[in-house]
C-alpha cells in the first residue's frame, strides 16, 4: 500500500498503563506497565496459565480490563468512542490461536473481506491481492479451499495472510507457531520479521517458542505465574544473561540451570 498513512512521530506505539485483568473476582494479572516501540517485535512470555492470551485479548479490546488502559499511538483505546475504536482497529492485523478464519467462506472470500470492507478495489484487483498474500504465506493456489479442508498449520498461515491484507501497522499473534512443524515455524518467523521490517509494522506476539523469541524478538516481557504480574522486560538476550529473576533465566535457557542441578 502507498505511504498515504502518516505515521506519528513518537517512537512509542503501544503503552499499557496500570493494567489489571480479572475474570469476575479472580485477578489474572495486576499492575502491568509496559511500552512497545514502533517497529518492535514484542514478545509476551510466561509459563502456561499466567494470562498471556488474556493480556492479548484485553489489548485487542475483546475483553475489558478491570483497571487501567492501553494507548495506541497515544490514543486511549478504552476511552475511545466506538467510531475511533473502529478507526484504530483498521491498523491492526490479528492472528488468533485457532486462526479465526470464517468457516463458511473460502480462503479467497476470507482474505478479500477486509478489502471489500475498507478499499474500493475491483473484484479482479482483490483477487490479485489475495493471490499475492496467499503466496507470501506459502499457500498459493489455495483460494477455493474452505478452512475445514486444510490443516491446522495452513489455517494459521491463511489467517496471517488475512491479517496482513491491509498492510497493518500493528500485528498481533497468539501463539503463531504452535502446531507448526519446525520448518514452517522458522518460515513464519522469517515472514513476521520481514513484514515488521518491510511494512514498518509493530508486532506483538504471545509465544513460548524459544527459537522464535531469540530469532526475531527485539523486546520481551515476562509474566510471572506466582506474583501474577510482569516481573521483567528487555531484549531476550539481556533477559537470559542478566535478568535478576532466576525463573526468567531458566525459562530462556530451557531450564538448563535446573536440569544440570538435577543431573549432578
Amino acid at each position, binding site marked *: 500500500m502507498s505511504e498515504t498513512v502518516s505515521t506519528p512521530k513518537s517512537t512509542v506505539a503501544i503503552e499499557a498503563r496500570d493494567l489489571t485483568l480479572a475474570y469476575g473476582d479472580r485477578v489474572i494479572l495486576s499492575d502491568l506497565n509496559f511500552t512497545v516501540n514502533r517497529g518492535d517485535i514484542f514478545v509476551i512470555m510466561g509459563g502456561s496459565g499466567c494470562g498471556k492470551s488474556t493480556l492479548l485479548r484485553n489489548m485487542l479490546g475483546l475483553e475489558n480490563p478491570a483497571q487501567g488502559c492501553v494507548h495506541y499511538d497515544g490514543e486511549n483505546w478504552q476511552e475511545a468512542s466506538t467510531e475511533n475504536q473502529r478507526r484504530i*482497529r483498521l491498523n491492526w492485523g*490479528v492472528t488468533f490461536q*485457532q486462526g*479465526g478464519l470464517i*468457516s463458511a467462506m473460502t480462503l479467497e472470500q476470507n482474505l478479500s473481506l477486509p478489502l471489500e470492507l475498507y478499499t474500493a478495489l475491483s473484484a479482479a484487483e482483490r483477487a490479485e491481492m489475495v493471490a499475492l498474500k496467499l503466496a507470501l504465506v506459502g499457500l498459493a493456489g489455495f483460494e477455493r479451499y474452505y478452512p475445514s479442508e486444510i490443516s491446522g498449520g495452513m489455517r494459521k498461515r491463511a489467517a496471517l495472510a488475512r491479517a496482513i491484507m491491509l498492510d497493518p501497522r500493528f500485528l498481533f499473534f497468539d501463539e503463531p507457531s504452535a502446531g507448526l512443524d519446525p520448518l514452517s515455524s522458522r518460515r513464519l518467523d522469517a515472514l513476521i520479521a520481514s513484514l515488521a521490517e518491510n511494512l514498518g509494522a509493530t508486532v506483538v506476539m504471545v509465544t513460548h517458542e524459544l527459537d522464535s523469541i531469540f530469532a526475531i524478538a527485539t523486546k520481551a516481557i515476562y509474566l510471572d505465574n506466582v506474583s501474577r504480574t510482569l516481573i521483567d522486560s528487555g531484549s531476550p538476550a539481556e533477559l537470559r544473561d542478566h535478568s535478576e529473576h532466576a525463573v526468567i533465566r531458566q525459562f530462556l535457557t530451557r531450564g538448563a540451570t535446573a536440569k544440570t542441578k538435577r543431573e549432578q
Partner: protein
Amino acid sequence: MTLWLRPRGRVYLARNGANDMLNRAAVGQLIGSDRTELTLTGLWEIGQVPAFSEFAASETALLSIDANDVIDWDSSLVNFALQAHLHAVTHGYTLELALPNGAQALLTLALSVPAQAQVPNTTSKWTQFKHALSPIRLSEQLGDEVQSLLEFIGSFIAATAQAIAGKARLRSVDIMRFCYQAGPNALPIIGLTSLLVGMILGYLGAVQLQEFGAGIYVANLVTVGMLREMGPLMTAVIMAGRTGAAYAAQLGTMQVNEEVDAIEILGISPMQFLVLPRVIGIVIMLPLLVVYANVLGIFGGAMVATGLGITPLQYITQASSSLALDHIGVGLFKGLIFAVLIGIAGCRAGMRSGRNSEGVGRATTNAVVTGLVYLIVADAGINIICQILDI
C-alpha cells in the same frame, strides 16, 4: 513366585498367596525423645500401603524417613513422602528424607511449583444447592437475564435499523443460505406434524361435537384451530428445535474457533454479520411454513371428517365459511413474532456460549428451552391482546 525384570533392572515381585505377606509395605517406627525414625520396607504399591497419618507425630523436633530398603515403589511412596513434607511444614519440625532416586526426583517435581494460594470454590455442594434456590439469588438472576436479553434485543434493533438505512453489510448469499436451511429442509417434518395435528384436532372435535349432533362443525374447529393457534405454534416449536438450536450451535462453534473475535477485529459487527442474516432467514421462512402447515392441517382434519361420514364437499364448504381473513392474519402475525423470538433466542444463546466446547452444548439446550418459553409467553400475550381487541 514370578519375577519380572523392569526396564531399569529393578526386580518386581508379583503378588501371589503367602509371599504377599512377606513383601507387604511396612513402616518400622522408632520414637526417641526429640527424634522419630520411620523405616519403610516391602513393596509400595497403590492401595497396599499404610497412610502417613498413622505415624504422624507433631511433637517431634525431627522426623527421619528412610525408604532405601523398599523392594519396589510407585507413586504411593511419593505420596507418603509428600504427606510427611506437608505435615512437617505445618507443624514446624525438620524432615530428613532418604528416598530412592526416582522417588526423590518425583517429590522434587511435585514441590517445584507452589500451590495456588486461593481455592476458587470451597463451599459445599449442599450450600451451593441452598444458595441456588435462594429467592434473592433467583430474582437477581432473573434481573440479569432480562437485562442482558434487553441489551441483545436493543443492539439487534440497532443493527436492523442500520440495515434498513442501507448502512449494514448484509450479504444476500448468507440470507439465502439461512432461508434454505430454515425452509425447504424443514418441509417433511413440518408436513408430517401438521397433518397429524390436524387429525388430532379433528378427532377431538368430532367426539365432542357429535354428542350434540353438530359433527359438521369439526371443519370449523380444525380450520380455526389450525389457522389461529396450532399452525403457527407447532411450526414454531419445530423450528425452535431445528433452526434455533442450529443457530446456537453454529455461533457457539464460531466462538470456539475465535471466528467471532476475528470478525469483531475486522471491524464488522457480529450482530450485523452473523445474527441479522440468520434472523432474517427464519423470519422470511417461518410464515411461509405456517401457510404450508395450515393447508396440511386442514387436510388432516378432512381425512378424519370423511371417516366420520362427512363428505369432502360438506367439509370444504364448512371450512371455507370459517376461513376469515382475521384468523389467517392473526396466525401469520404469530408466525412472524415467533420467528423473531426463535431467531433471537438461538443467536443469543450461541453468542453467549463462551469459548469452550462444553459451552456449545449448553448453548444449544439453552436456545431450545428459552425459545420455547418465549413462544408460549408470546402466544398467550397475543391471544389476550386479540381477545381485548376482539379480533
